């Protein structure tokens, strides 16, 4: 029985909790991608760098707050700076939309042209972030590091395995739940949200019913900027802020959105967790858990790691491919252009 508990604790510590936190971050990112796909009808390659930009503004404001002594006690100061980051990111994406995307929308350009345009935006945003904050790692997390540390947990329960819950992991999940609840309330209950869904379902019909497309597009960008900044800041708090990492997050985020069904917000969340859990379980060394569960003579000699951690991209990609081949619209019904 104690062995079973130990195994359970080890599993939670190394697999469940990190995967839930990572899944929430991916889900927030994928929601942004999926909203743009649903309303503006293209895959936004600049999304990773939008996340980086919003997170960067937050980091800068956090540093300023730390320097003048504003803090949230046990919670990271970044939470206070987050609204400013969101505002900065909103300003950037609205500016980009006005200067860049609007022209192609009016031309009714093919989606693939918009994807190439978003490649250009990606270059600019990436350059901008590196220009302002530099390409290196930046530390901005403060406050209490652990909600419960491994040592405290061991003393409390007397088990051999420790369970550590980082404040940032807990925060990630809470913030993600709040964001998703607000988003779904907005999409389902408010007038603007309903018109967004109508526009996404059938553009012509929505236009006929007098929905103003520019307004819908503007609200979409505002929501996307919010989600991207929140996702970027949470990821930065939980792991590290490095501009290049956000660019690399693009792949798992797209994988999440597609696995769930592009254009479907519920799917994006499910997809985020599917990708996160597969990445973590496939690259985790299971020896630690198995040694409690199996009888002593069967104890594995190797690490029982299916793939080395560097192959986590491969995991999200293989899942993506399997879903595309067997269920092209994703787990939840997405749309196709």
């Amino acid at each position: 029985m104690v062995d079973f508990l130990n195994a359970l604790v080890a599993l939670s510590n190394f697999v469940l909790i990190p995967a839930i936190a990572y899944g929430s971050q991916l889900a927030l990112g994928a929601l942004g991608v999926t909203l743009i796909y649903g309303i503006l009808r293209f895959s936004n390659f600049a999304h990773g760098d939008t996340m980086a930009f919003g997170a960067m503004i937050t980091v800068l404001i956090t540093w300023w707050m730390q320097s003048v002594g504003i803090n949230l006690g046990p919670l990271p100061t970044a939470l206070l700076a987050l609204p400013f980051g969101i505002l900065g990111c909103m300003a950037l994406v609205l500016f980009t939309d006005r200067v860049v995307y609007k022209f192609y929308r009016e031309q009714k350009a093919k989606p693939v042209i918009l994807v190439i345009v978003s490649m250009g935006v990606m270059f600019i945003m990436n350059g901008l972030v590196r220009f302002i904050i530099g390409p290196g790692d930046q530390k901005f997390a403060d406050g209490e590091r652990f909600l419960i540390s491994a040592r405290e947990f061991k003393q409390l329960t007397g088990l051999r395995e420790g369970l550590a819950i980082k404040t940032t992991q807990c925060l990630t999940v809470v913030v993600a739940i709040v964001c998703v609840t607000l988003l779904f309330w907005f999409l389902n209950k408010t007038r603007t949200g309903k018109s967004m869904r109508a526009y996404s379902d059938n553009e012509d019909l929505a236009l006929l019913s007098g929905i103003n497309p520019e307004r819908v597009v503007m609200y979409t960008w505002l929501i996307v900027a919010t989600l991207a900044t929140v996702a970027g800041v949470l990821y930065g708090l939980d792991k590290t802020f490095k501009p290049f990492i956000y660019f690399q997050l693009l792949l798992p985020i797209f994988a999440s959105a597609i696995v769930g069904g592009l254009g479907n917000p519920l799917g994006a969340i499910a997809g985020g967790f599917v990708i996160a859990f597969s990445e973590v379980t496939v690259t985790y060394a299971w020896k630690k858990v198995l040694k409690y569960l199996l009888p002593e003579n069967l104890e594995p000699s190797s690490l029982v790691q299916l793939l080395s951690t560097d192959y986590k991209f491969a995991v999200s990609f293989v899942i993506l491919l399997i879903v595309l081949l067997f269920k092209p619209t994703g787990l939840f019904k997405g749309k196709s252009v």
Partner: protein
Amino acid sequence: MSEMMKNTALFALVAALILITGFYQSWNSAIFILNMGLISAVMAIGVNLQWGFAGLFNVGIMGFVALGGLAVVLIAEVPTPGAWTSGGVGVIMALILGAMTIVAATVLNKMMQPGRSRTLIMLAILIGGFFLFRAVFDPAVSGIEKINPAAQGNIGGLGLPVLLAWPAGGLLAAGAAWLIGKTALGLRSDYLAIATLGIAEIIIAVMKNEDWLARGVKNVIGLPRPLPNEIDLQNDPGFVESAASLGLDPVTASTLYVKLGYSVLFTVVLLVLLWMAQMALKSPWGRMMRAIRDNEVAARAMGKDVTKRHLQIFVLGSAICGVAGAMMTTLDGQLTPGTYQPLRFTFLIWVMVIVGGSGNNFGAVLGAMLIWFLWVQVEPMGLFFMELITSGMADDSDLKKHLIDSAAHMRLLTMGVILLLVLRFSPRGLIPEK
């Protein structure tokens, strides 16, 4: 005729830019720009084949370029003594086992009716196959990696002449492209883009982690070269004498000689590929490709096998990128998987093709040379610009220091701005498709 004039003028402009670099900076850096520009031009031809001719949105160029680089190691590197006996055979066996598992799963998928029993058998095959694969693969790999790990520890090459590695790189990339195309080409443009983006990352991950293959992030250095070493030239009295007669010191003369030698080799490859691409464009095959690109449904209705043609051109274009990758690794003389980054090896090539003019081979070549020149030169230009605008600030000002330190990141910004400007005001590129 005026169009011809304009195009010639554009090429002359690029040539002039490179010459100016030669006169005002150094001939070494001018020829470096020229050499990498030629390689980029080869990549751009490959991408133009896929995007310009057939409308395939491939953002996995980096992967094929890296495979070309891998081919150089596998073909030209000296063989590692004992690698084949201590594990090489085992690795090959394991790879065959892995391939058989996947083939078995695909056959099963086709043969059996969908249902729970199919899923279960499928899972059993895949999981069993995976563990069998690891059981054969892991000992073989550790056997290879034990051999002289400080300098080798990899399977080694065949010791063949390095120029053979160029077509081999093309073949390796073509093989990978065939596999990828078989699975991913049925996808819509957006999905294909994301699929290829992912595959490129996986190829790089494999090259970084499979140390038995090409030493992973430990890098392979000192690859064989098709041209003599500079140091040998400097010790050759005949060469020193002829350098002196040109008024050059032996060191400069030898580096220039070797670099120009590469330029000649690359130019030959570029011209051959350009000629082939032009022929393909004008042929009935090229017209069919453009017909498919412009209206897939109509082409299908005319009895064209769209899927097969897409696969064909995907393989061809990727092979060209593989050749370019092999050329680049030969020029560098080393394979460093850590340096492959999508911004540099995928998206920059896309900027080249779009700016040059998608659908036009000469446009792709021009775009490649021009964008590569800018990519190299924007950094010093940005530094100069930053020094100009910060000249009024105090020397110890943090802002000034930050601006000058960040000047290096101007190049990404510039590339993005160029791409957006071209897309907006001249969407067909500098030399548009006819």
